[in-house]
Structures are given as C-alpha cells and as structure tokens.
C-alpha cells in the first residue's frame, strides 16, 4: 500500500518540480531522492508500518512476496537512474516529466504485485503501460520512436481489450472478480467449472503473454525496443517486464487446475515457441540493441518456467531472475547508450579504450548467458529446478538448455568484439562516477552469483 500511495504522490511532485526547477540535472537528483523515499516507505510496509490503512475489500492482497518484489523493482530503478540519469536528461527538454512517468510506472508495478481482484489487475496493467507509450515516443522528432510508440499503443490496447474480455467472461461464469472464487450456487444446471471461466482464463493468459512478450504474441517487442530511446528500452526490458511476470505468476500459479492437463501442454508450447523465436532470431541481428530486444524474448522463455513449475522454487526463482536479469540488462544498456554505433562492430576494441566498460559489460553478458559465478546462473538454475521438481518435464528442461547454449552465440559476439577484435569504438564522454556505478553493478552480479541466498534470505526474514 505504501508503495502505491508514495509513488503516485512522487509522480505528482516530479511534475511540479519540472515547472519550479529548471536545471535538468537537479531533476535526476530529485528523482533519486524520491526513489530512496519510496524504497524506505516500501521497506517500512514489509515491517508492518503503514502510511494509511485502507480497507480494500479484498481487492488487494499485500503479501510478503509482492512487497519484496517492490523492493527489488524500486532498487533496480534507483540503480538505473543513477547509471543512466544523464541519458534521460538528454532525450528531450522534459526530463522531470519522464521521471514523473517512471514513478507512475512504479505505481503500476506495486499494484500488480498486490492485486487480488481482476479489476485491480486491469487497473495496474493500464497504469503501468500508458506512461510507457509516452516514454517510447519521448524522442518525438525521431520517426522510429514515433512509429514504435504508435505500434506499442495499438498492440497494447488490443491486448488490453482481450484481457477485459477475459475478465468479463470470468465474471459472467462465476459472479466474482476474484480468481477461484465463485458466487454462483452449484446446481445440476450449472457445472462446478463453467465454460465461461475456462475461456476467460485462456484470454487472460493470451493477454498476459502479450504483456511479457512471449511468442507467438511477441511481434511488437523488437520494433518497440529498437525504436524507443535506449534509456527507456532499458527500463521497459527490465523492471516493467519483471513486473509483468510477477503479475503473471500471481495470477496463474494457483488456479490452473481448472484448465486440467491441457494447461501444461499450452504452456510448454508457449515456452518452446518463445525460446525458439527469441534465440534463433537474436542470432541473426546486426544491431546490439535489437539483439538485446530478442534476447529479452528469449529470457522471457526462461521466466515462463516459473509458471510451469508453480511451486516455492518458482516463486523464489522469479524474484532471483528479476534481480539477475534486471541488473545485467541495466548494466549493458547503460554502456550501449554511451556508444555512438549500436552495431556489433561498434564494440570492436572496446577493451583497449575503455577496459572498465568492457569488463562490466562482459560480466553482465556472462550473467545473461547463465555462466556459473554470475547471478544469471542461479536465476536459470531456479527456473529449471522448479520445472524438474514439478516432475515429468525433463524433456522441456533439456530443450531449454539447448537454447541456452544457442544464446551463448549472440552474447559472446559482443565479448568477441570488445576483447578479440581491433577497432576504434566511439563513445560519449565517460565519467568516473559512471565507471564506478558500472563496477558496482558487475560486483553485485558476481556476488549474487556466488551467494544467491543474499537475495533470497531477505524474502524470508
């Protein structure tokens, strides 16, 4: 609750600070301070101190899992702002407004991590995505950015429509907006699970697949991620995507027995399709930014295992995955937006001219590939372990593992360019604090990779 209220208020504060404070670099400072405040408010919440106690009539369910995810999302945003704040200021002349929109996104994130009623899920999704449509088009003189924004908007509306349809059908079938609850009295005429409820759940599943860019509903992702300004792609591909998954897991890990055995078949089809599309297409990219867009689809394929497993390991795993994936991707994007040339060749010889950038990018890439000693290994490990624990799905794990080997190909292309090829990469000015920030991110990636319990223990404190 604290996170929802405070982030909404901070969004308003940011909007006004745009009018009052003219110096753009102060906006970043204010945003960072706001995020610290938000982090504090959310932590207080998890210790049982509430800003306002509201009776939400069972529409929200503030559980430890969701609040802990809020902590992760806010902390990741803080790291993101500290690393890439300068780039946000350069996009356009409304940096305070961009930060305001980011706070609204965080408000959406904290709603999604706590919703209980499907109406609140719908609200959360809308609050999360509408600011993103604007952020995607923030570079308003760039045609690609405009195109991406429009495309994202149209596809987003379409999938929201499907979601609403699903919610309606479920309400029609059960008389309740809460999944698994039925207000319709059982009778001979009405079977226990109605057809409407199952149809509604499938529609919900499809729309959530849209939101987390799982194949075959992924087509908007590459264009949007490529067209949006790099800083905002970084935000969308990490915190927003992880939040989508948290909503997905909270929605579906309880009530899938309604769908019977076909649920696992449906889900494994989506997982394999996502891994296939993401990995194979990423291999053929020439631009690192576009490669990262496809790789985010591939990573979504792994995150979907948390739905497949649907056990305690899956819940822990999706949190760990959020941390590992967000840290690594934020780190890589922070470097990418400093580059003048987004192609693989643009990275040639970076290890010689900017060893710190190259080292931290390499560590982040190793983490995305899931090499041991980096956070990404345990993230993937938990996902696969949850599926093995659920039983009967070793074949799916083996397929996933094969695709993980494919992913090495495109992640290592960047490492090869940086370390083994010669070139004169052009970068924007690199400051000392930026390097320090990158090193901190890389160190965190390794630390979590050796002691994942650092992240997970917090969950149980």
């Amino acid at each position, binding site marked *: 609750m604290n996170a929802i209220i405070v982030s909404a208020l901070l969004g308003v504060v940011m909007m006004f600070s745009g009018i009052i404070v003219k110096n753009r670099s102060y906006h970043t400072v204010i945003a960072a301070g706001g995020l610290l405040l938000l982090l504090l408010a959310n932590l207080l919440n998890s210790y049982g101190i509430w800003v306002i106690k509201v009776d939400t009539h069972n529409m929200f369910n503030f559980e430890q899992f969701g609040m802990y995810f809020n902590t992760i999302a806010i902390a990741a945003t803080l790291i993101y702002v500290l690393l890439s704040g300068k780039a946000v200021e350069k996009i356009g002349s409304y940096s305070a407004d961009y930060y305001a929109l980011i706070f609204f996104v965080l408000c959406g994130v904290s709603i999604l991590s706590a919703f209980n009623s499907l109406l609140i899920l719908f609200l959360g999704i809308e609050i999360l995505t509408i600011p993103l449509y604007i952020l995607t088009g923030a570079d308003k003189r760039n045609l690609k950015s405009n195109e991406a924004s429009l495309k994202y908007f149209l596809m987003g509306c379409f999938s929201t429509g499907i979601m609403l349809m699903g919610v309606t059908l479920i309400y029609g079938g059960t008389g309740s907006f809460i999944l698994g609850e039925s207000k319709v009295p059982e009778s001979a005429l009405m079977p226990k699970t109605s057809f409407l409820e199952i149809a509604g759940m499938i529609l919900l599943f499809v729309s959530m697949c849209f939101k987390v860019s799982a194949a075959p509903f992924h087509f908007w992702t590459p264009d949007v991620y490529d067209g949006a300004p790099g800083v905002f792609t970084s935000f969308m591909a990490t915190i927003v995507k992880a939040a989508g998954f948290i909503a997905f897991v909270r929605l579906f890990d309880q009530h899938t027995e309604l769908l019977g055995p076909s649920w696992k078949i449906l889900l494994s089809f989506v997982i394999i399709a996502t891994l296939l599309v993401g990995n194979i297409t990423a291999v053929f990219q020439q631009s690192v930014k576009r490669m990262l867009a496809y790789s985010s689809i591939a990573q979504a394929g792994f995150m979907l295992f948390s739905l497949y497993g649907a056990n305690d390991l899956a819940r822990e795993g999706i949190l760990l995955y959020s941390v590992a994936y967000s840290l690594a991707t934020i780190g890589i994007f922070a470097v990418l937006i400093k580059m003048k040339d987004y192609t693989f060749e643009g990275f040639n010889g970076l290890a010689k001219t900017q060893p710190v950038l190259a080292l931290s990018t390499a560590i982040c890439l190793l983490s995305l590939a899931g090499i041991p*000693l980096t956070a990404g290994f345990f993230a993937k490990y938990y996902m696969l372990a949850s599926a093995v624990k659920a039983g009967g799905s070793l074949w799916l794990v083996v397929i996933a593992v094969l695709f993980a080997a494919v992913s090495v190909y495109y992640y*290592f292309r960047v490492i*090869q360019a940086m370390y083994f090829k010669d070139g004169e990469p052009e970068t924007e000015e690199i400051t000392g604090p930026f390097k320090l920030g990158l090193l901190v991110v890389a160190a965190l990636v390794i630390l979590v990779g050796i002691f994942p319990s650092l992240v997970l223990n917090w969950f149980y404190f």
Partner: protein
Amino acid sequence: MIPVSLILIPLITGLAAFFLKGENAAKNWALLSSAITLAVAVAGIFFLPAHDLSYDAAWLPQLGSRFSLMTDGMGKMLVLLTTIAFPVIIIATARNQYKNPGSFYALLLLSQTGLLGVFLAADALVFYFFWELALVPVYFLCSIWGGEKRIAATFKFFVYTFLGSLLMLAGILYLYFQSADHSFALQSFYHIKLSAGQEALIFWLFFIAFAIKMPVFPFHTWQPDAYEQSPTAVTMILSGVMVKMGIFALLRWLLPVFPHASAQYAHLIIILSVIGMLYASLIAIRQDDIKRLIAYSSIAHIGLMSAAVFAHQQTGLEGVMIQMFNHGINVIGLWIVADVIEQQLGTRKFSDLGGLAQKAPAMAILLVVMAFANIALPLTNAFVGEFLMFNGLFRYNIWIAAVACISIILAAVYTLNMVQKVLYGSTTGVTANAREIGGNVQWMLAILVIIIIALGVYPQPMIDLTKDTVQAILANR
C-alpha cells in the same frame, strides 16, 4: 584445509596478477604461485594425515549444497599432475612474448583453480561450478592470445563444452530431486536408485558432457582446431590436464552413479572409442603440422582410456589411472618440443623441417624418448599404462581388443614418421641455423624424461596411490 588452500592460492594470486605490469613480474609471480601450490599439494598428499585432505562448509543451505571437498587416490594423482604441470609449463614457455602478460598469467592461474576444484569437489554443484570455471579462462586465453583463426576455433570449443555442461546440469538437477536427503553430495548421489529408463536418460545427459570434454568420437571435432589455434602454453593445459577432467568425471560421477546404464551401454561406447582411436590415428598419419599431429594422437590415446574405463576390469582401470598421469606428462613434453621448434624456426610444417639432430643433439635425444613414450615402448611410463589398459580390454572382449591394438602400430607409424622428418635427413633452408635448446627449457624436458623413465621402470607407487579408487569403482557394481 589443504584442499581449500589448493584452490585459494591460485585463485587469489590469479586475481592479483591482473594488476601486474611487465613481462617478468607477471611470469615470476605465476611461477611463485604455482610452485607454492605444488609444495602444498606434495606436503598434503605425502606428509600430512588423511583428515586434512577433506573440507566441508555450508554454502547454499536452502539448496542443499555444501562446499565440500575430498581427495581419494585418483584425486591425489590428478592434483599432483596439475600442480606439476603448471610450473613446468610456465618455465618451458617463458620465452614466449605475450601482450598484457599480467592478464595472461592471471587467466592461467584461474584455470588452474578450476581444474583443482573439479578434481577435489565432493558436491555436484561445486563440481559444476569449477567445471565451468576451468572453461571460461581458457576461452579467453585462446581467443586473445591464439593463432589466426582463434576466434572461430575457440568459440566452437566453448559452445561444444558449454552445451555439454548444460545437459549435465539438467541431469544434476534431476538427480538432486531423486536423492533421499535432497542434497548434491557425492555420497547421496551414489545411493540414488533409479528405474532403468530414467537411469539411461540421465546417463546420456552426463555422458555427452564428459564425452565432449575428453573428447570421444564423434564429439571430437572441436579439439584439433582448438589445440592448433591456442597459444602453446594453453594447448599444454588443454591436452595435458583438462582432457583428464572428462576421464576423471567418468570414474568419479558416471560409473558409480549409473552402474546399470554404464554396463548396458559399455559396448556401444567402447566401440565408439575404438573407432575414434583408429580414425584419429589414420588422420594423424596424414598431418603435416606438428601441433595437429599431436592433437590427433591425443584423441587416439584418450579413446583407449575411455574404452578401458567402460571395460570395467581391474587391470584396465589401474592402467587408466596411471595413464592419465603419464599421458599428461608425455603430451606436455611433446608440446614443449613443438613450441621450441616453432619459436626458433617459425614453422611447424614437417615439409620445412629436417636434420635437427645434427644441430641440436640434446633436444633430439629428449624428443626421441618422448616419442617412444608416445608409442608406449617398454621402459617408458606409457607402456605400463597401455599394457594394463589393453589387458583390461582383452578381458572384456578379445575381438574389440584386437582391433584396438591396430592403433599401436599406427601410433608407431605417425610418431616415428614425425621423428624422422623433424630430426633426421638433411637440413633444410629453415633448419640450417637451428640452435640447441638452452637453459630452463632443456631442464624441464629433462625432468619430464626422468619422470617418463622412472615411472616406466617402477610404476608401483602410482598404482598404490590410486588403488583405493579402483577398488571402490569395482566394488560398486
């Protein structure tokens, strides 16, 4: 504490070496570190009580993984091989110039950390970690300091082995959930009872990982390219020590955990191994490049070891144990000679070489001894190992053994051919100005030759050292 310090010394010195500037500083630092590691290993294996040789600490309590290390006879032998190999390699290749020497030696020491960790691990997750840790530094070593086609060759190597490791990870996860106490400990894995179908499936997941690492036919295609393109110091680590990871893993993890599946598929794997031996030997005959010849000859030797492992006879297993050590010593010796020739004359092609015996008699003698060891002539260490392995193979199946024996003849053909083309005949334009190898390199070769002859005449200490592992493996089925 001995196993922990064996891992920590190269790890810490390796990380520190990244910050060293200058050729000599880095080299001496690496040499000092590997010498200390060797001293610790020798002291721990021969002079300290056995309880110092295992270690156990909490690592990931929620996952049921403990940071536990152990040493049995095979572990001791391979630790000894690794710790001897590194100082020898560093001294023998000291004349090679590297750009960024600090990073080069740092990565070298980190790969030693990985290797030692693999040989000591008593927990599947720890094992997996070190298995990968050994791979990543080698990938960077080959890709930065390797030959012309290094990027493609090492990438192939990396993807192959990484794919294998990931399949193994899937297998490890499966076993973890089958184990009674939900732990990754080696001992819990040994007590898992699987149905025949499950056992066969998981067996293959593990076997492919190990087969790629060894490498066994048909998973060997990464190997000749990787050996040829790597800087020679790294090739020595790859072929001298790292391929032993595969054989070691078969004996430590595969045979005891999947006794029935290993028996069931032994025939198929032995046949594959024998095909690999003959195939690699035939290709070796046609090579015109010293490095590629040694690479293919190495595939043939590893094939024999893999066949002897699956034959599951006492003599064969004893042979595998000592041959793991011997092959490491012999192949490192051959690589040193190849490196000396390449550094001095700038070529590795037989067609450019000849008559080196007139110019460098000492090197000629040392090379001939090592070539004899490569053919496994009596009085060299390899004779004992190969004899025992063929003996085991004969007990398993006389026809397979007979076919496998052809590889001895083929080995003589390509090895003696190499000796003849390199050392004898008239000198060519390239070799006219060849000099004797000097100083430290010669001493290193001499030490290796002494080990070769000493273990050839009296191999009993090596058999005694690894006896407990052989007994444990045999008792398990």
